[in-house]
Every structure is written in structure tokens, then in C-alpha cells.
């Protein structure tokens, strides 16, 4: 049971990250190398804004949401928007720059302290075999489910969702047909950073936040790639695979290897099936 609990929480953490990476990739063909950093800084903001006003959970949630929204709009409107028509690597390298800046923010603002988010850590459900699920774990899992269901409904049934898909398909054509591409792409960044923050909070409750934990970005990227960089369904499947593999490695082989699992899977996927489980093969040729 403990196995199931850990894997499910890890899957949620990675799936949220992977979903953000996939959404950004679909929206603007940008692979966000700053996603792990966004998640961890989101977690830190949640922690600190909660502390600010007498340990209020709602303030913490509001703080994290405000951070994600502002960050998403800022990254898109100030940086990414200018990079249309530039060579593909420019946008990637800008995200790499953002990653470094966010990491330095952790060092400057939070002094690179190890922080564990301790909201709702009281065990809510005791599972057979001594494992427990805390309130936050349950909330996280439910929110993840809600996030993916909401995303599915949004893309499938709403007008904006259709505009979203249109923009992903062909931004120029979409803008000519009256889609506000800037709005849609800002929204993509907001959704992605929101998901990242949620994942950072989940991760911070389970383990700890620090400058080293930004490597969960790599796990998220691996999950996205395993599922296919342009497939949201794949993000969940990929996250499950990465979480599963990580758990098994820690359990059966050696805990030291847990850090190594994501990139080993990444290498394997790159060799065997680089377009991922659900991705489209043609993506490989797009630059």
C-alpha cells in the first residue's frame, strides 16, 4: 500500500509538470527548461506567503496562484512574445536563462534553505502496512485529477479551448481568423506555471524544497517525452512510468540511483522511441 501511495503522489507531481511542458510545447514549440525551477519557486512562495499571515492556508494558496499568474504573464508578454520568428534555439535558451534566474532567487530570497511544507501533513487515511496519506496528499491528488479533467473539458468543449488548439496548430492562421493569440499564449503560460506550482507544493510536502530539488524539472521533462512532447494523455502515462521506475529503483536496487532514473529513461526513450508513446513522429522534423 505504501508503494501505491508513493507512486500515486509522485505520478501526480510529475504529471502536472509534464502537462505544463506539453502545453507550452504545443502552444509555441518551446521546451521550457525552467519548469522545475518554476515548480520549486512556486512551492517556496506557497510556503512563505502562508507564513506571512498567521499560517493561513488560504493566503498560501492565493500567494502561489498570484505568483503563477504573474510569472506566466510576465514570461510570455515580456520575453517569449518578442521571439517570434527568431531561430528555435533562442526561445529555449531564454527559458534556460529564466531557470538560472529563478534558481538564484531561491538562493537570494530564501537563502537556499531546505524547506518542507507542513500544511495539512497530519495523516488523514491510514493504509494497510503503516503507510499514510496526509490531507495535503489527498488534496493534491484530487486537484491533479480536477486539473486534467478540467483541461480535457476545456480543450474539448469551450470556445477558448478550440481557439487554443487552433493556435497550437497554426498561430498565423489563427490570428488571421480573429483569435487573440497573445491572450491564448499568455493563458498557456499561466496554466503551465499554475500546474508547476501545484506540483512544487506537492513535492515540498512529500520531500523538501531546495536548490537541488529543481531537478524534478528533468523528471517532468522525461515524463513529457516518454508520453510524447505533444500529447497531454502521454504526460500522465509518462509520469506514471517515471514514478514507477523511480520507486522500483529506490526499493530494489539502490536509493542513490533515484536521481539517475529520469535521465536514464530519457536516454532510453531518445534511442528507442523519441516521439514518445502517444506523440506524433512528424514532430521530430519540426525545428
Amino acid at each position, binding site marked *: 500500500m505504501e508503494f501505491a501511495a508513493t507512486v500515486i503522489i509522485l505520478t501526480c507531481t510529475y504529471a502536472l509538470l509534464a502537462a505544463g511542458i506539453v502545453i507550452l*510545447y504545443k502552444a509555441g*514549440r518551446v*521546451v521550457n*527548461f525552467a519548469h522545475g525551477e518554476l515548480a520549486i519557486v512556486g512551492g517556496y512562495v506557497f510556503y512563505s506567503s502562508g507564513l506571512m499571515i498567521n499560517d493561513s492556508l488560504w493566503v498560501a494558496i492565493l500567494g502561489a496562484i498570484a505568483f503563477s499568474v504573474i510569472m506566466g504573464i510576465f514570461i510570455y508578454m515580456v*520575453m517569449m512574445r*518578442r*521571439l517570434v520568428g*527568431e531561430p*528555435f*534555439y*533562442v526561445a*529555449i*535558451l*531564454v527559458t*534556460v*536563462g*529564466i*531557470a*538560472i*534566474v529563478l*534558481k*538564484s*532567487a*531561491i*538562493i*537570494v530570497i530564501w*537563502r*537556499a534553505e531546505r524547506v518542507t511544507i507542513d500544511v495539512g501533513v497530519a495523516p488523514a487515511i491510514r493504509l494497510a502496512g503503516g503507510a499514510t496519506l496526509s490531507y495535503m496528499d489527498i488534496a493534491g491528488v484530487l486537484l491533479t485529477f480536477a486539473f486534467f479533467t478540467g483541461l480535457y473539458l476545456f480543450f474539448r468543449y469551450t470556445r477558448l479551448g478550440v481557439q487554443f488548439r487552433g493556435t497550437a496548430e497554426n498561430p498565423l492562421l489563427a490570428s488571421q481568423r480573429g483569435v487573440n493569440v497573445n491572450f491564448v499564449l499568455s493563458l498557456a503560460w499561466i496554466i503551465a506555471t499554475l500546474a508547476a506550482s501545484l506540483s512544487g507544493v506537492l513535492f515540498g510536502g512529500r520531500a523538501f524544497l531546495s536548490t537541488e530539488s529543481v531537478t524534478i524539472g*528533468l523528471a517532468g*521533462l522525461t515524463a513529457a*517525452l516518454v508520453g510524447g*512532447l505533444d500529447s497531454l494523455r502521454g504526460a500522465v502515462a509518462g509520469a506514471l512510468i517515471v514514478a514507477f521506475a523511480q520507486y522500483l529503483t529506490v526499493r530494489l536496487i539502490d536509493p542513490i540511483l533515484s*536521481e*539517475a532514473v*529520469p*535521465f*536514464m529513461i*530519457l*536516454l532510453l526513450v*531518445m534511442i528507442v522511441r*523519441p516521439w514518445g508513446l502517444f506523440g506524433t513522429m512528424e514532430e*521530430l*522534423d*519540426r*525545428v
Partner: protein
Amino acid sequence: MARAGYNLRTNYLESNEVLRRPYQRLLVALILLAAVVLPMGSSNFFLHLMNLCFLAGIGALGLTILTGFCGQISLGHAAFLAVGAFTTVILTVHVGAPFLLVVPAAAIAGAMLGFLVGLPSLRFRGVYLAISTLAMHYAIIFLATSYQAKFAASASAGITIADPVIGPFVLRGDFAWYYFLLAFLAAVTIMCVNLSRTRPGRAWMAIRDRDIAAEALGINLARYKLLAFMTSSTLASISGSLLAYYSNVVTVEKYTLDLAIIYVAMIIVGGMGSVLGCLLGAIFITLLPYGIDNLFAYVPRNWRFGSTIFGVQVGAVGVCIILFLLFEPKGLAEIWHRIETYFDRWPFRYRPLDGIRR
């Protein structure tokens, strides 16, 4: 004879000229002279900084070949440096090989690894290639970490390396290293300039600009892409090996993804695909942390935590990457070029034509 302007090249010989403007020869001679004379009477710390700049320059020139000339984006440069450093460790600690054998061996190890890391480039372009180099980075660093955990006296201290011996000389102290590295960097720079205007360099640039067109021109994509990866990793590996000898200690903690990004920052700040820019960028990014350290002297005392300075030093690299990509995508080289153009046209104030660049 009046010429149509320095940017207009009308025949093959002219197109291959490196220093076209009359004052450029003078300038290069002056810089070289200054570089040779400068160490007399300057402090050890200054020489130390210059040595770091030279080492960074060698590594950054490697990345310029790969990313600047050939257009293959790589986040694995730190891993190449690590390969050089750890080849040095293995050969000096376990075998006791001399300096003159170790550096070429590091170069060969780097080339072999470059071949391996370059293989995905035959299959992927763009984003996927960047991700595959990222995975390679982690894989190589993981191996290096395992090695260090096994063989280092203590895991955190790293592995010490003795000063290199070349014949009767011992390469010790910043002064001796300065001249050694200066000569080395000059040689590598000349090699890169010459590469850029001969067949491999032109093939790389054709691949960078449009790989399909390059293939149609008869360029063997696989061969030249792998060649770019191998040349790049060789230079990085040599730089890593020399750095290991220079600093006398190797720890895997140094070769993080951040280091790879710092090298990317060098070529961005300098200007993609420009050898001059690459050197300027290497100097700029290497000196940046020290500059920030000095700036912090003016900051109120209660703001001055050790970690704050470190954080700002890290973040400044990221800020540089973002600002240069957004506002000066061709980097310091372009700024220098603009100054040159201004004086070329003086007293007229023409706007430089688009598409003309050196």
C-alpha cells in the same frame, strides 16, 4: 586604390581575408603586445583571473564551433569539460602519466565522447537534440560522480593533481601558466578562424543555415555534424584537462548543468558564430562574478550575506542570457562591429544595411 567598403568582398581571396581593415593588424599586434607585457608588474590575482579567462576561452571556442558554426545546440558542454578533467585524474593518479601525454589523451577521450554525444544529432534536430545532450550530460556526470565516490580520499574534497612537468620545467604559479595559456589560446583561436574559412567551417555554416540545402550541395551531413561535435568536445576536454592541472584539484561538483549554461552564456553574450565575440563573451562572463563581488562593497552591510552574493552571481548569468537574446542577439561582437562601421563611414551616418555582417 579606393575600395567599395570593407564589407563588400568581390573575389575568393578577399572573401578569405580575416583582418581587412588596415588598422586591424595594428590592433591585433597591440593587443598581443599588451598581453605579453601586461603580466610584468601585475598582481597574482589579476593573472589568476586572466588564466581563468583563457581557459574559458578555449572551452567556449569549442562551443562556438558546435553551436555558432554548425548550429547544433548543446547543453552538454560541462560534461565534455568533466571528461577532460577526469581523464587527467585517471591518467595521473592511477598511471602516473606525464603532462605531455595526458593532454593529448584527454583530447582523444573528448573526441570519442563527442562522437558518441553527436550520434543523436544524425536523428534529431532542434529541441530534441538539446534534450538528448541534456540527458548525456547527466549520464556522464553520474559516471564521474560514481568514480569520485570510489576513488577520492574524501567525497567532498575532490582529487588532487600535481603540477605538470614539461621536460625540465615545472608549470607552476600564475605567471608561468599565463604565458602557457596565452600561447595555447592564441593557437586555438587561429585554428578556429582558419576552420571557419575553409571547407569544414563553410560546410558547418551551410548546415546551420539550412541542412537540407547543405545536403543538396553535396555536404555529408553525418560526417560534418559528427566532426563538429568531435572538434567541440576535443577543445572542451583539453580545456577541462588544463583547468584540472591549473587548479590542482578536480571535483565533480564543479561540472553542473549551470556550468554548461555558463558556457552557453559566453557564446550568447559574445555573439553566436563569431570567434572574436566568443573570446569577448568568455572574458565577460568569467569576470562577471568578480565584478559583482566588487559591486557588493557598495551595498549596505546588512544586505551582504555570503549566499546573497553567490545568488546574485548565479542570477547575473541568467539575466545576461535573457537580455542579450532579447535586445542584442548578435552579442558583443555586433556592438564592436557597429563601432567599426561607424568609424568606417565617418563623417557620414548611414544606417548599416541589413544582412551585412562579418
